[in-house]
């Protein structure tokens, strides 16, 4: 007689063998895909899926360098006019040819998606007019000089003309999901999975897999377990805790890259006095706001051992940062390096600023937004406390954190910034430019840092078409805002890591997209 456990095992195993399928790639995603409408919610997982089905005029490679996409070429005719040449012989999944009309329809639809919680309209706003010069040429006019137009276009997925009037539910049901990309829509189950099949008629290189199944496994340990169990062949966002172990595991290999996301500390440099969470060293309320003093901010920066955080908290999955983006990105500074851990120097600076005995702080941090966000904050607090600035940590879900942070309820906070367009102007404009709703500046400047010199440099750069000149200006602005004035304190760049089963290879991307058509078989 077979004992029950063995019997059970036999049945279970039998079925496992049957379920394995060739030519199928299964990927574990870390965040749920919320829609199939490429214009509804500007969110990394949504965009990532959209990139399989739809295409943008301008592509970005794994380093976010601009590459031709549906547009074969683009150029600024004058400072406000752009001419875009479209690729010919591209067909939609339903067989109709791709033309300039489709591009114009897309541009029309984007600002008018009902109920959109985060639309792509921000990238459209500089455009005042769009015309088709011929079926494969589009002319775009901007209000003023807008050098970043190609970067912006890299975020916009082109839909066919007939989908212009389609609603978001039409996309979610799959009815409207017709693209030009390497994969075709097959199935979408909210909160569970997205299934795609290969587009045999794709103009570009053929993907390695006929069918892709994306599974949403938000719990990171479960995601790793799924990879180890072979239920999925690839996962994104490998948790730092498992890196060391997975590196040793023969069944899997890892792909990682320093991403475009910086983790930084923001300090209240707006309020002159009575910053809400600043106390004296004994914990009593204090009127003066030491954080307004750039020397104090510099001292805090020097108190943080970035290498320790990168190695101990992030297990190597981070690179200490001295500015907003890694040096490989356009508009970054070559001069800025991460501040060295220097408690002595910090002490001197604090004394100089008039705080030889330090003061007390509370560091506010989200606990479910960035990799190890709460732990990094604890580590920062450890260092500050040891360095004579007793620091408490208060962590909260990001839903609460960002609401309160934007209402300026904090004195000292930890946050992150990913430069979606892959360019240094994005953090400069949002994080350290003077808060100004009209210009759209300083939208995420929760420390209300303000420096006229930085503002001027950023504003000029934003209208400078010449890439080289613009790059120099942006680097200068960064050196002033971060290197000199410490408007934010950079901590590290996150490293994004993917795990794949042996036999597969993935080129890690700085924009954190998980693209099935970039997965290669390595045999």
């Amino acid at each position, binding site marked *: 007689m077979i004992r029950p456990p063995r019997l059970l095992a036999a049945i279970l195993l039998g079925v*496992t063998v049957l379920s394995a399928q060739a030519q199928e790639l299964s990927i574990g995603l870390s965040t749920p895909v919320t829609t199939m409408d490429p214009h509804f919610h500007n969110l990394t997982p949504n965009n990532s899926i959209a990139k399989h089905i739809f295409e943008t005029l301008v592509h970005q490679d794994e380093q976010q360098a601009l590459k031709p996409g549906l547009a074969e070429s683009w150029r600024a005719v004058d400072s406000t006019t752009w001419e875009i040449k479209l690729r010919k012989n591209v067909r939609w999944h339903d067989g109709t040819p791709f033309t300039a009309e489709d591009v114009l329809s897309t541009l029309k639809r984007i600002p008018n998606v009902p109920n959109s919680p985060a639309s792509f309209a921000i990238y459209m706003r500089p455009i005042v007019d769009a015309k088709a010069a011929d079926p494969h040429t589009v002319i775009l006019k901007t209000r003023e000089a807008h050098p970043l137009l190609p970067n912006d276009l890299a975020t916009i997925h082109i839909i066919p003309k007939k989908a212009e009037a389609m609603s978001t539910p039409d996309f979610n049901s799959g009815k409207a999901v017709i693209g030009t990309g390497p994969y075709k829509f097959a199935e979408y189950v909210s909160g569970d999975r997205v299934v795609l099949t290969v587009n045999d008629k794709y103009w570009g290189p053929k993907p390695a897999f006929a069918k892709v199944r994306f599974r949403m496994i938000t719990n990171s340990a479960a995601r790793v377990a799924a990879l180890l169990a072979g239920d999925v062949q690839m996962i994104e966002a490998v948790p730092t805790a498992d890196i060391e172990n997975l590196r040793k595991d023969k069944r899997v290999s890892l792909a990682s890259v320093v991403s475009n996301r910086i983790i930084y500390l923001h300090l209240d440099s707006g309020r002159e006095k009575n910053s809400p969470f600043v106390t004296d060293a004994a914990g009593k309320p204090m009127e003066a706001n030491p954080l307004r003093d750039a020397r104090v901010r510099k001292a805090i920066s020097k108190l943080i051992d970035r290498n320790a955080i990168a190695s101990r908290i992030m297990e190597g999955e981070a690179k200490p940062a001295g500015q907003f983006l890694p040096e490989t990105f356009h508009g970054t500074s070559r001069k800025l390096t991460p501040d060295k851990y220097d408690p002595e120097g910090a002490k001197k600076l604090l004394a100089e600023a008039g705080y030889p005995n330090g003061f007390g702080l509370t560091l506010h941090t989200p606990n479910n937004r960035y990799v190890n966000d709460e732990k990094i904050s604890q580590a920062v607090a450890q260092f500050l406390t040891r360095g004579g600035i007793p620091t408490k940590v208060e962590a909260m879900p990001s839903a609460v954190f960002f609401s309160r942070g934007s209402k300026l309820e904090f004195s000292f906070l930890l946050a992150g910034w990913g430069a979606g367009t892959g360019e240094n102007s994005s953090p400069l404009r949002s994080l350290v430019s003077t808060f100004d709703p009209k210009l759209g500046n300083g939208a995420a400047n929760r420390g209300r840092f303000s420096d006229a010199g930085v503002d001027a440099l950023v504003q000029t750069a934003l209208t400078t078409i010449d890439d080289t000149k613009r790059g120099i200006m942006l680097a200068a602005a960064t050196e002033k805002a971060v290197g000199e004035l410490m408007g934010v304190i950079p901590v590290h760049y996150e490293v994004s890591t993917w795990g794949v089963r042996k036999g597969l290879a993935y080129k890690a991307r700085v924009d954190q997209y998980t693209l099935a058509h970039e997965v290669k078989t390595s045999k």
Partner: protein
Amino acid sequence: MTVYVLRRLAQTLLVLFVTSGLVFGGLYLVGDPVEILVNPQADQEERARTAAALGLDKPVLEQYGLFLKGMFAGDLGKSFVFGRPALEVILERMPATLELAFLAMLMSVGLGIPLGLYAGLYPDRKTSKAIMAGSILGFSLPTFWVGLLLIMVFAVQLGWLPSTGRGPTENVFGFSISIFSVEGLRYAFLPSLNLALFKLSLIIRLTRAQVREQALLDYIRFARAKGLPRSRVIGVHLLKNILIPLVTVIGLELGSVIAFAIVTESIFAWPGMGKLVIDSIFQLDRPVVVAYLLVVVFMFIMINLVVDVLYSALDPRVRIAEAK
């Protein structure tokens, strides 16, 4: 009985109203959904647009008024995140949770009652003591912890079962159900076991306590004095009396299984509504959270009502007292 049902329905309305108000107000206090929904790159103009698109630019009382108005028309608002009617989003996820809850209850009842019966009938045997010790353990282990251990053992180490996710679904009366296929059951086994463990312990303990109490009563002795076989004394006389209190508990626990599915669904990436609501809470997707609570509360009340009706069907004493 009519009175009873009427009373419960009146209560239900009141509860739904109060729940909606509390949750609506509560989530309003937590934070501003726009902050979490918009792309970080968005400027102030885009934020304002989002707020207007989601109806968040109006005063909160007006928002609530609009919500109530919609509620009476059966519209619980549109999800901020999904842009679809919140009710639709939830109903779409409900079958997954319900099948998990159903399997879990099946496991805990199917195993719990026999084990509890055994432990109650032979309290001094070693096996009974082992069952009781095991049940205390099941009581004491945190669900989430056990969940991962199950994955580690059965999926990663032994490779017998899929680690996470839901198996292939079939369309049954318009709902996608996964547990009618062997493959689907393989996926559902670990999560429902995880969910069932606590309830299993509970039912074992309750059954045992009931057995020990009932077995002392005269009617059992009388049944034996009548010369009935032991199987009938236990299987009919004892069991039916035990089942009556158990039905109440099982009904209440079904509700809590549905609620506790939140934890299990998070671990096993099970696309149910528990997972949805925890995500929605973190994303401040108020319409979904409010709608979820309304749906779940409504379900609980209905389950309780059914349980009470069932109770009176099982227990002739209640039946007659009500009918009089």
